[in-house]
């Protein structure tokens, strides 16, 4: 096992809710509530879950766009929670982020050439001539033509803009890219183009990804390991294949079975969960999933389940957080 490139331990991010005329803190949103995982160099960890589960907040904590409430984040030997601002800038050469909507993250008044030169300018790398060559090379890498360099973001389609977002993220040869729903806004035929590009770049450049998305089929396709989140906590963490073939947490099982498969002949046992995802402002006690869980017992309401190894697996191969995991026989989908 490689030493981890990024290791996260007990990460918590609570946002205060202010109310009343004095804007006093009246509550906390427990967006991320004790999350631990590692990402190995050159590997992809998928982070999957429904809206409000805290997956985006995890991504933002890792890049230190948020300062976490508690927990440890170690990236490439740096203690991310305690670094000084100057050091953070240097670290960000190795740690980049791609967003769902690249249009919002691209300055509409700058040409693509200017946008892509910016990382080199900020980090004072290369001469202007070298930068121009680098930009041309970046465009080629992400499948865009060098002649597009003078165009503005609005002249590109959604898929092309995401390519520009990716070009900017790989400009400084980072070690890890946080991809936050990078293909959710794209059409199916464009989505596969971008997924292929991300896989190619990973193979060529040895990048690691944290791939955040709500679509489990997409996450499974691109990830080596997957963490399933529910209301701020990881409920299951294992290899992509094991998660699909032998889910051990009732939530992962329901999530997999809820995905509509593009196959009208598929005869599947469908688990339809009752109710809505509760608010992270006031999460249920004990196991957060117990109000919707078809297997919940009274003790699930009281006891918070730990993320522990599934019996019969080694080390961190398959972790799950269900008090009843040993007793349940979740059928394969």
């Amino acid at each position: 096992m490689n030493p981890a490139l990024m290791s996260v331990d007990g990460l918590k991010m609570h946002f205060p809710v202010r109310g009343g005329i004095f804007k006093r803190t009246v509550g906390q949103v427990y967006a991320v509530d004790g999350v631990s995982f590692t990402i190995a160099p050159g590997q992809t960890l998928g982070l999957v879950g429904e809206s409000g589960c805290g997956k985006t907040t995890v991504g933002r904590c890792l890049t230190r766009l948020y300062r976490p409430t508690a927990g440890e984040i170690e990236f490439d030997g740096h203690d991310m929670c305690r670094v000084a601002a100057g050091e953070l800038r240097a670290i960000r050469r190795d740690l980049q982020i791609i967003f769902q909507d690249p249009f919002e993250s691209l300055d509409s008044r700058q040409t693509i050439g200017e946008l892509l030169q910016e990382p080199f300018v900020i980090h004072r790398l290369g001469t202007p001539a070298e930068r121009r060559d680098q930009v041309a090379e970046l465009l080629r890498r992400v499948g865009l033509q060098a002649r597009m360099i003078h165009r503005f973001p609005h002249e590109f389609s959604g898929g092309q803009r995401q390519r520009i977002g990716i070009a900017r993220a790989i400009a400084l040869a980072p070690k890890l890219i946080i991809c936050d729903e990078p293909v959710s806004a794209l059409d199916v035929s464009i989505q596969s183009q971008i997924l292929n590009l991300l896989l190619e770049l990973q193979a060529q450049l040895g990048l690691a990804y944290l791939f955040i998305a709500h679509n489990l089929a997409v996450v499974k396709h691109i990830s080596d390991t997957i963490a399933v989140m529910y209301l701020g906590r990881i409920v299951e963490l294992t290899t992509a294949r094991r998660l699909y073939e032998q889910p051990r947490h009732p939530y992962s099982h329901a999530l997999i079975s809820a995905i509509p498969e593009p196959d009208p002949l598929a005869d599947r046992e469908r688990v339809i969960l009752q109710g809505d995802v509760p608010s992270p402002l006031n999460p249920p006690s004990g196991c957060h999933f117990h109000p919707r869980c078809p297997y919940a017992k009274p003790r699930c309401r009281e006891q918070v389940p730990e993320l522990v190894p599934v019996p019969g697996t080694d080390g961190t191969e398959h972790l799950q957080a269900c008090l009843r995991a040993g007793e349940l026989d979740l059928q394969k989908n």
Partner: protein
Amino acid sequence: MASDALLTIENLTTAFDTEAGRIRAVEGISFTVPKSRTLGIVGESGCGKSVTALSIMRLLPRPAGTIEAGRILFNGRDLAGLPAEEMHHIRGKRIAMIFQEPMTALNPVQRLGTQLGEVFELHFPEMDPGAVETECINLLRKVGIPAPEARLKEYPHQISGGMRQRVMIAAALAGQPDLLIADEPTTALDVTIQAQILDLMRSLQQETGMAIIFITHDLGVIAEMADEVLVMYAGQVAERAPIKTIYTQPRHPYTQGLLASIPRLATTPKSRLPTIEGIVPSLLEMPGGCRFQNRCPRVMEICRDSPPPMYRVGREHWASCFLHRGQPAAGEVRP
């Protein structure tokens, strides 16, 4: 087959006048929706699937949008030329519609009870207020909303996205429509909530016998919901087939490419996905001939010269592609 047709669209063309000129968002499409059945319309953004729905509802943005040609036969009446007042009696009552984002379809400053009640007052003016309230409660219960009496007093922002979509479905059902047009009804919802809504729509269809036009970009959702599928590309129908046929024997290169490019739970992780190269051409710069020619892996000379007709490639299976030139074309055989 034709006798139980509820809705028949013949050669519908819908155009928009823009600063850059007239564009045809939908061009020459034809299809039939039988009673109590579900037609799925699938396609990527800009393929014309929503414009088709708005044309049927006669809700095109005015003055820019117009139905340029074709007929929309609903129970034998042509909606395309119907006066606006007569359309009022059909829209919402005989044909209802639900949208992707229920928050924008609901009035944020009106209680749910008021909004639902309005639908009854509109369609059944003789109903007294007490009966309206009872009906609203019954409807909310029918769409699976817990404690419906209490919900009537609430505002849209107080309920979740899934619940809002249930309220929209309730409002759509109020007039007991023969046809429900659902335009991406679950796209904004989480996957576990989507499963609930799809399940609800299926059971309501069984109960009421209404027909559904289900519009989505998600081939997985279509596989679960539709009896027949229309695959649209750049404003035209690329392929039309019964549900199983479209997935097992797609005959149009676009359908084939689309199905191959979706990552599935069973595909090998980290493998290269087949793709459809390039992007959909803009409606302003549509190539002559087949609209898919620039992205098609099997493009031929003829594809650049003339637009392909619909060829009959199997039982109730039509594909608009010159690869099937040997087959009878629409016009020669009535579709």
